[in-house]
C-alpha cells in the first residue's frame, strides 16, 4: 500500500500525542493533580490511530475505561481532555465525566466506559441509526480482551450480524484483563476464531505494527461503509503500564515491561519503518515530537489554571434535558 506523507505525519503525530498525553497523566496523577483512578493506554497507540484515522466526526466510536487514546485518535481536544481529567468546569464534560467517562458527542465519541463491555451494544445503536437513516456513517467499538467475555458483547456481536450493522468491533488484546491473563480467561483457543463463529469476518493482527493494523481496519471499515455488515478485529498489543496508575503489577513477569518498552514499542516501529522506506525524514518526526511536547505542556498548564465546577450551579444541572 502507498501512504501519502501527510497521512503518515498525521498518524505519527496522533500516536505521539497519545503517548505524551498518557505519560504526562502518570506524572500529574503522581503529583496529585488528577483525582480518582486513571487507566492509561501507552503502548497501544497504533491500534487507536489505525482504527480512527479514516473516520470523520460523523462516524461514532464507543470506547473503554482505557480510552484516552481513542479520544485523541477521534479528534477530541487534548486541552479539553486534560481539563476533564483534572475535573475542571471547562473540561470536555464540564468535569462531570472524568477519565473513565470522557466523551465528545460533536466528535462522534460516544464515551469512554467504566463498565467493561458497556460500549458495543451502544455502538450497535449508532450503527443502526446510520443504517436506518442511510447516512453512510459507521460505528466502531473498542473493547479489551476482558470485554470479549462479557455477555453484553456477545449479544452485541450477534445483534450486529442479524441486522447487518455497519459496526467494526475492535478487541485490543493486551494480554491482561486487569490482572488476569487473557489466555486464562478466554476459554476458546483463539478469540478471533470465536468471533468468527458469530458469523462475521474476523481477523487477528499485530497491533504493534501500525501498517498491518491499518490495513485490517481499512478493510473492515470499507466493508461497513459498503453496507456489507460488521467485522471483528483482534489487535494484539502491549500495555506499558499497569491496569491503573499505581498498579504494582506483581502479576507480570520480571523484566516483561522493560522488554516490551524496548522491543514492542509501536512508535519506534513506526519510525523505523517510515525512515527505512524513505517515506519520512527523522527531522520531520523530531519536529512533531517537540510540537506535541509543547502541546501537552500547554494542556497541563491550562488545565491547572482552569476553574473548578461550582457546586451551587453545576451539581444539579445536566441530569435531564427538561424535568
Amino acid at each position: 500500500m502507498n501512504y501519502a506523507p501527510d497521512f503518515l505525519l498525521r498518524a505519527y503525530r496522533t500516536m505521539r500525542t497519545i503517548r505524551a498525553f498518557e505519560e504526562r497523566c502518570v506524572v500529574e496523577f503522581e503529583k496529585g493533580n488528577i483525582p480518582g483512578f486513571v487507566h492509561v493506554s501507552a503502548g497501544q497507540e497504533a491500534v487507536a490511530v489505525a482504527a480512527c484515522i479514516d473516520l470523520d466526526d460523523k462516524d461514532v466510536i464507543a470506547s473503554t475505561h482505557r480510552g484516552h487514546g481513542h479520544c485523541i485518535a477521534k479528534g477530541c481536544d487534548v486541552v479539553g481532555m486534560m481539563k476533564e481529567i483534572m475535573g475542571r468546569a471547562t473540561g470536555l464534560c464540564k468535569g462531570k465525566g472524568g477519565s473513565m467517562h470522557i466523551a465528545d458527542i460533536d466528535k462522534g465519541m460516544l464515551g469512554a466506559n467504566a463498565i467493561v463491555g458497556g460500549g458495543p451494544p451502544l455502538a450497535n445503536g449508532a450503527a443502526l441509526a446510520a443504517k436506518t437513516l442511510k447516512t453512510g456513517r459507521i460505528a466502531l467499538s473498542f473493547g479489551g480482551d476482558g470485554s470479549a467475555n462479557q455477555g453484553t458483547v456477545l449479544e452485541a456481536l450477534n445483534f450486529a450480524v442479524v441486522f447487518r450493522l455497519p459496526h467494526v468491533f475492535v478487541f485490543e488484546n493486551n494480554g491482561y484483563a486487569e490482572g488476569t491473563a487473557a489466555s486464562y480467561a478466554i476459554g476458546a483457543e483463539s478469540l478471533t476464531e470465536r468471533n468468527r463463529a458469530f458469523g462475521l469476518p474476523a481477523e487477528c493482527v499485530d497491533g504493534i505494527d501500525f501498517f498491518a493494523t491499518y490495513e485490517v481496519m481499512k478493510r473492515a471499515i470499507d466493508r461497513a461503509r459498503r453496507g456489507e455488515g460488521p467485522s471483528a478485529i483482534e489487535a494484539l498489543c502491549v500495555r506499558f503500564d499497569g491496569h491503573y496508575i499505581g498498579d504494582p503489577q506483581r502479576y507480570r513477569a520480571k523484566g516483561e515491561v522493560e522488554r516490551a518498552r524496548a522491543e514492542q514499542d509501536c512508535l519506534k516501529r513506526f519510525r523505523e519503518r517510515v525512515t527505512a522506506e524513505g517515506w519520512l525524514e527523522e527531522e520531520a518526526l523530531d519536529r512533531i515530537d517537540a510540537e506535541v511536547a509543547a502541546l501537552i505542556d500547554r494542556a497541563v498548564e491550562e488545565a491547572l489554571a482552569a476553574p473548578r465546577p461550582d457546586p451551587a450551579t453545576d451539581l444539579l444541572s445536566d441530569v435531564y434535558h427538561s424535568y
Partner: protein
Amino acid sequence: MFSESRTTHPGGKSSVKTYREALNEALRQEMRRDPTVIVLGEEVSGGAGCPGERDAYGGVFGVTKGLLPEFGAERVLDTPISESAIVGAAAGAANNGLRPVAELMFFDFIGVCFDQIFNQAAKFRYMFGGKSRTPMVLRATVGAGFRAGAQHSNMLHPIVTHIPGLKVVLPATPYDAKGLLIQAIRDEDPVIFLEHKLLYDLKGEVPDEPYAIPFGEAAFHREGDDVTIVAISAMLHKALAAADELAKEGISCDLIDPRTTSPLDEEAILESVEVTGRLVVVDEGNPRCGLAADIAALVAERAFHALRAPVRTVTAPHTPVPFAPELEDAYIPSVEKIVAAVREVLEA
C-alpha cells in the same frame, strides 16, 4: 375492578378504545408524523424468519400489532432475545438521530440489561456534561394478576424511579396511555414506560387526534375533603372502587394518580393533604424503599403540620409474586384493604 375515570378530554372527535388500542394508536400516529421513530424488541411483530405469517404477535400483548405491515421491517425490528443488545441499541441510536421505542416484554427482564439502562442511557447526559440527548422510550409490562408467577409479574417501578436521568411513566387509563406515550416519544430524555398487563382490555374515551400529556402532572379522579388517596397504575382502579364504596357512607376522598413517578407531582399531593390532613398511599410494588414509602416520607417532611393521622400505606408484601391464584390475589392490594386503611386514618 375498573371504574370510569374523570379525566377531562381535549376537544375533537373521540371514541371508545382499549388501553392496548390507545397505545397502538399513539405509536402509529407518532411513526407517521416522525420518520425517525422506530420500534424494536422481541416479537414486536413476530414470525421473523418463520415459514408462516409475519406480524404473528404484534408484541407479547398485541400493542405493536399492524406496525410492521404499515412501516416495514426497517422501522419495526424483531430482535433476538438479547435485552442488553436491545436497550443498548436504543440508547446508542437515540444519540444518533433516531427516536427508538424499545420493548422489554416483561419489566422483570431488566435483570439482564440493567447496566445499559442505568449506567449508560440514564447517565449519558450528566457524564457528558449536558452534551448528549437520549430520546428513547423503553416500554415494558408490569404487574401481578396474570398468574404469571414470580419472574413475569413484578412492578419494579421504584427501582427505575430511583435512578437520576430516567423518567418513569405508569398510565392507568386508555386516555393517559395514549397521551403519555406520545409525550414519551417526543421527550428528549430516556423514558421508562410501564404498562400494567391487567389494563390492556380496559376501555375508555380516547381522542382520535394525537395529544401529549405533560409529565409530572397528576390526574384527580375523585375530589373530596376527608382523605387523600394516592394510587398509580392498576391500583388507581382499586382505589376508585374503594372511594366509590366509601362515598356511599358520606366519606369523600381526594383520589390522585401521579401518572409519572419521575418526575413526581409533589405539589398535587401536598396541596391535597393540606386540605384533608389524611393520606393513604396505594401501590402494588413491594414496600421497602418503594413508592408508597417515598410519598409518605414526602408528606412527613413537607406537610407534617397538616396531618391529623398517621399516614397509611397499602402495598404488596415483602415477598416475590406468588403463582397460586389464592396467594397472588392475597398479594395484590385489594379494595377491602384500601377501604380499611381509609377507615383507620379517619378513626385515628
